[in-house]
């Protein structure tokens, strides 16, 4: 017994030292993936990471890599736990530290400082720290195409449109159902600001992370207050529960809108037809009806390399695709400046910052309609085009409805800068100049 223990401990010590030795494989672009396919958020993770991985495979199989440099990715399972995420980051950063997309607010917050210190960019696509949109204070953090605050303003703009104009917001009452976690609380300051500005009121309904599946009291209250619109900021098991409860109290589903982490197949499937009419924000198109899927089928699915074929075409799968597409485009941009070789974190950061995905480029990628154009700049890491699409569930699948809704950047940006300045002051950072 004792022998076993000591050898296990010894093995661990050895393991650490072996792991940490950097072995930069020549000629491949190494990309780390902090995945979660187990634990409470597994269902969401499975689809997202399948999308990310399939796109890398597509680039490798179809184009032979990025400008001839093959992509080599490694996965590290975090289970959505922050400490495992940090360990995964440290484990992968030497060999694979090029760009991180953890798809977890907690992990993103924990590695922001580390990544900045290690000169590795973090691409938190539509999540994570909102104030990181200020590229002067957060040079290594990117959260385009849109932050939570922009999203909140866009959702309010959409609701106004649905109700018949911005002036119709006055005197209305909304319900805001959110996960009781930093992620869920993020939009509250903006709802406050907008409530004051447009004259509406809203009630807050936090859902604790430990009882995501028990929301009866919330929906009883909503049944009593009869809000004009319900807005949800949920994740994981909270979403299907909320949608089902809403349906069972006969809440008008077309007056219930989730953010873009509350609008995927896994959220509505359990409710099925009952969820018909439910809307959610989206940062990209839904379904498989894009030219890029023809290539995916030919180069990835038909060669039986799909990571999880069942989720292809799902909202979160598409999000993974778009995430990888942005990463690949950023690397391509960086290669234009630094040459066709594997890019380091620092170089990819430059690529991210000078990323300009135009409509023409999106057409070449076969993603027209899947993702809107975006242009990132040194000062603005949120991109020049924050806003949302709105999608609606018809009982069997999601449909895009209406046009792109731009965010109210005029009220978001000042607060972003103010929060970033506060962070800079606390940390003693001098914001770099972007002019």
């Amino acid at each position, binding site marked *: *017994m004792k022998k076993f223990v000591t050898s296990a401990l010894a093995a661990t010590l050895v393991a650490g030292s072996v792991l940490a030795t950097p072995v930069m494989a020549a000629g491949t672009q190494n990309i780390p993936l902090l995945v979660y396919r*187990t634990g409470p958020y597994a269902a969401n993770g499975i689809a997202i990471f399948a999308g990310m991985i399939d796109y890398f495979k597509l680039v490798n199989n179809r184009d032979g890599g990025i400008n001839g440099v093959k992509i080599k990715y490694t996965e590290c399972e975090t289970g959505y736990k922050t400490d495992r995420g940090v*360990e995964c980051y*440290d*484990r992968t950063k030497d060999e694979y530290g090029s760009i991180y997309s953890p798809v977890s*607010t907690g992990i993103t917050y924990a590695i922001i400082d580390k990544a900045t210190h290690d000169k590795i960019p973090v691409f938190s696509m539509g999540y994570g720290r909102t104030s990181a949109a200020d590229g002067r204070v957060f040079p290594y953090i990117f959260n385009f195409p849109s932050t939570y605050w922009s999203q909140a303003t866009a959702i309010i703009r959409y609701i106004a449109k649905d109700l018949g104009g911005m002036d119709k917001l006055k005197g209305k009452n909304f319900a805001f159902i959110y996960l009781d976690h930093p992620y869920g609380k993020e939009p509250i300051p903006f709802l406050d600001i907008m409530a004051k500005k447009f004259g509406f009121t809203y009630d807050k309904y936090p859902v604790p*992370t430990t009882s995501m599946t028990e929301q009866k009291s919330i929906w009883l209250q909503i049944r009593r207050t009869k809000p004009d619109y319900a807005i949800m900021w949920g994740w994981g098991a909270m979403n299907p529960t909320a949608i089902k409860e809403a349906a069972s109290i006969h809440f008008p589903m077309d007056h219930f809108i989730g953010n873009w982490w509350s609008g995927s197949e896994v959220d509505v499937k359990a409710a099925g037809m009952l969820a018909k009419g439910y809307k959610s924000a989206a940062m990209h198109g839904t379904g498989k009806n894009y030219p890029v899927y023809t290539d995916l089928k030919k180069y990835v699915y038909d060669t039986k390399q799909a990571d999880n074929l069942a989720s292809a075409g799902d909202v979160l799968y598409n999000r993974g695709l778009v995430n990888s597409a942005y990463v690949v485009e950023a690397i391509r941009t960086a290669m234009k400046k630094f040459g066709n070789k594997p890019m380091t974190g620092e170089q990819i950061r430059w690529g991210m910052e000078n990323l300009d995905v135009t409509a023409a480029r999106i057409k070449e990628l076969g993603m027209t309609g899947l993702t809107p154009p975006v242009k990132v700049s040194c000062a603005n890491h949120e991109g020049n085009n924050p806003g949302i699409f709105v999608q609606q569930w018809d009982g069997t699948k999601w449909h895009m409805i209406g046009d792109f809704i731009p965010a109210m950047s005029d009220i978001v940006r000042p607060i972003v800068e103010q929060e970033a300045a506060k962070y800079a002051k*606390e940390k003693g950072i001098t914001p770099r100049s972007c002019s």
Partner: protein
Amino acid sequence: MFYREAGDFKTTYKADQAIFPIALDRWFVVTVVLVFLVVVPLLASNYMLESILTPVLILSIAAIGLNILTGYAGQLSLGTGGFMATGAYMAYKISTAFPGLNIVFVLIAAGLCAALVGIAFGVPSLRIKGFYLAVTTLAAQFFLLWLFTRVPWFVNNSISGVPTAPPRKVFGFLVSSADSDPIDRYLFVFIITVVLALVAKNLARSRIGRMWMAIRDMDIAAEIIGIRPLTSKLTAFAISSFYCGIAGALWSFAYINTVEPTAFDINRSFEILFMVIIGGLGSILGSFLGAAFIFLFPILLNVMPGWFGLEISVTLVTQVELMVFGGMMIFFLIVEPHGLARLWSIGKEKLRLWPFPH
């Protein structure tokens, strides 16, 4: 042969009451401390230092804390995460309110806050024990985390609610925040751990420690011989929470760099309890062994297929990791319910004779 107790003569009572009465033990401990203080920082990689050793040491502090409560005083607690969170949030609050205050004092103050909270939640222990008490301590877990996420004052009204640990220095070395050198951070955590472990070891041998153990072994008998359950149970809660509070503060400041609630959720409480049980109830050494085992074993399982060049999907590895981890846990409990510390002493017994058994 290799482990010798014989020939170690004491001439004063003081020497007889020393913390490590056997010379060999003393030298062993000193060597281990020196190795970890000098050799390890020189040899180990940054990954080892910052993602393996630092968290293991911090968790050891928490495990010592819980061991004081559960192992020595016999009170089962599942509120460890809540007490750690108290330490973390209060350290952040104190540190930002008094930026000039040395981090060591910040830690102590945060520990004291956690101790007060611990006393408050320890009061039910006067009426109940066993699993009833364990479930009641869950109240601390849920209530405290709720409080910290609900009241923006604790995070200085930060909009996101996840403040970043401020950079703080000790003797000119940066020991918190991501910009600090992993070696500095490791040494800082290591020294604190050693000091706290020595204090705990001494506490356990002192009057107060004997009071705890008397209460643990039979509370009514202890009461009859004049030990007051009120004071001894509540001191156990206070000191245990103090340790947990410091561990929580270090976790946020020296390891993950942010103060966030999910780091101290219910799973953390269970994890620490595991460490204590696997390590050995009522053993300081066991707390270290348990922390190392529980923290490292999953990671080891996770990376192991890679060494053998096996291309197994990461998901499968994690599922197998959970299964093996659960299985190992049961296996250990069956084979050695007294924990790794017990294995250690069995090993010492063996070394006394080995390799000449007669």
